[in-house]
């Protein structure tokens, strides 16, 4: 039986993929296998079985030690040959996207990245992804015999996992060392903020005329007990760190409340906002596209509206 094969360098993401892949593979009449690669491969193999994989291919060849993209792609291509994999689910992290292109090229496969949902339609997997900078959602089918989908984190719920047979298969691979040398790894510097988990967010945009004016946004965020976020342009000005960006190049949030202040609402930003339960927009321009997305809109000067809002919140 042909297989769906899942892989991610992140054990948590791999488990999500196994959990979601289980249901899709069954619907497609495919087996579900997983690849566990690198020094920790043997340790993660049983987890992948518990998350849904029938077979877990394990390889800890020395060339896989740092999980370099070129070697991982080659390893997966060789495993695909042994396991008759016709469909790959990878994690759509930056590493995962890099891998998706390299692997797809090796296998003459079509690839779709940044997939936000996967379904079976007319016997084929269809992946949804944001298109045109997030203005639209494209439903994409891959037409090549081998298919590569890179799926965003949290698309599948690991709590829904059903265990698979979990048979561990040690594979012998023939891998050349990577062309890339790992010189070092470091944690991302700067304050770590998890906007995707934040229940309330205040987003600041180019309506703020100067860096120091962002104190207004900070005060509003404090009054709401919300996280402060921004559009990409404010991070480009280095007014706020990159981990505060909401949108295509940053966090895709789903808070209970999003308050966009001085934000025009270009799709590159709103793609990270549109899943908020309630959206508030404050902007001087009543034609600003953000108002089309807003539950509550205030047309006005943020330098007057925001202090008034802080006051109203404090006097509650």
């Amino acid at each position: 039986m042909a297989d769906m094969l899942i892989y991610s360098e992140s054990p948590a993401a791999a488990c999500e993929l196994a959990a979601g892949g289980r249901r899709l593979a069954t619907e497609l009449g495919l087996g579900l296998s997983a690849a566990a690669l690198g020094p920790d491969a043997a340790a993660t193999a049983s987890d992948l079985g518990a998350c849904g994989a029938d077979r877990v291919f394990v390889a800890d060849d020395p060339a896989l030690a740092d999980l370099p993209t070129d070697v991982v792609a080659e390893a997966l291509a060789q495993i695909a040959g042994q396991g008759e994999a016709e469909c790959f689910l990878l994690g759509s992290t930056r590493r995962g996207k890099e891998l998706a292109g390299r692997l797809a090229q090796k296998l003459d496969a079509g690839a779709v990245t940044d997939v936000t949902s996967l379904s079976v339609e007319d016997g084929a997997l269809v992946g949804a992804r944001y298109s045109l900078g997030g203005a639209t959602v494209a439903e994409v089918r891959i037409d090549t015999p081998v298919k590569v989908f890179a799926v965003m984190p949290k698309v599948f719920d690991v709590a829904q996992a059903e265990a698979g047979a979990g048979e561990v298969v040690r594979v012998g691979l023939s891998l050349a060392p990577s062309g890339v040398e790992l010189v070092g790894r470091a944690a991302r510097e700067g304050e770590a903020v998890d906007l995707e988990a934040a229940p309330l967010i205040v987003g600041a945009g180019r309506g703020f005329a100067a860096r120091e004016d962002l104190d207004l946004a900070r005060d509003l965020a404090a009054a709401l007990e919300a996280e402060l976020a921004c559009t990409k342009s404010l991070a480009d000005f280095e007014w706020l760190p990159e981990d505060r960006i909401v949108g295509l190049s940053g966090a895709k949030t789903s808070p209970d409340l999003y308050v966009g202040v001085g934000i025009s609402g270009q799709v590159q930003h709103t793609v990270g906002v549109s899943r908020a339960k309630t959206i508030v927009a404050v902007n001087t321009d009543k034609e600003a596209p953000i108002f089309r997305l807003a539950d509550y809109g205030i047309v006005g000067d943020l330098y007057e509206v925001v202090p008034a809002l802080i006051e109203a919140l404090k006097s509650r």
Partner: protein
Amino acid sequence: MRIVVCVKTNLDLQMVRIRGREPVLEAVPYKVGDLEKNALEAALKLKEGGLEATIVAVTVAEGDRKIGETLKEALAIGADEAVVVNDPALAATDQAAVAAALAGAIGHTGGADLVLCGEGSTDGYSGIVGSRVAELLGVPQLGYARSVTVTDGAVTAERSLDDQIETLRAPLPALVSVVSEINEPRIPGLMQIMKAGKKPLTELTLADLGIDPQAAGRQTTVLSDLAEEQDRKHIMIEGDAAEQAAGLVDALAKEGVLRR
């Protein structure tokens, strides 16, 4: 050495509008993508830092588009020469054929010691063309670079991953894709724009590269491409700032989203 910068002609997303749920793409202009400008800037910085290099901008086009404008922009920014694979067969295609055309053009025009590209295009944003080109050229890749240096025949890049910063080094030839924070792209001046028209521009077809146009078809089918349905209240709160603020706080309290 030859530095090739892969330049995609992107839809100007600032000009995309939605009618109903349909994107309106007629009359939306094309331009050199933002991340491609970062890649060009990175190449120029390497050259200005003392690296002896010819910078070649390479792009693909579907035969009829005013691609000359895009390449002129790349040349004005600072590329020394430009190459375009201009072929109607590329009109209805996707990443694999684009990568094949780019890799073919690089091979056909003197190769590359270093290939630079953006981490993705601002419109399609698949982020996989660079990987495919690296695989086709059989070179190592250093993706998502926020810095790039070349010394002693090797490229070193600090790359910005989801949770980590990773420093990688690879011997040349290699491919590096860049993220926007790597630099602030320059804006060409009038003199640069004037000079751009005189720089060499090579136009190729897929046949020139030995690629069968029949094989340049799509690997994927887009079944639909529509704006998400949004069910929003669209309540505009009127009055002076104080009245608006009071009205909003009332409404949010009723929504139950306030913490206190």
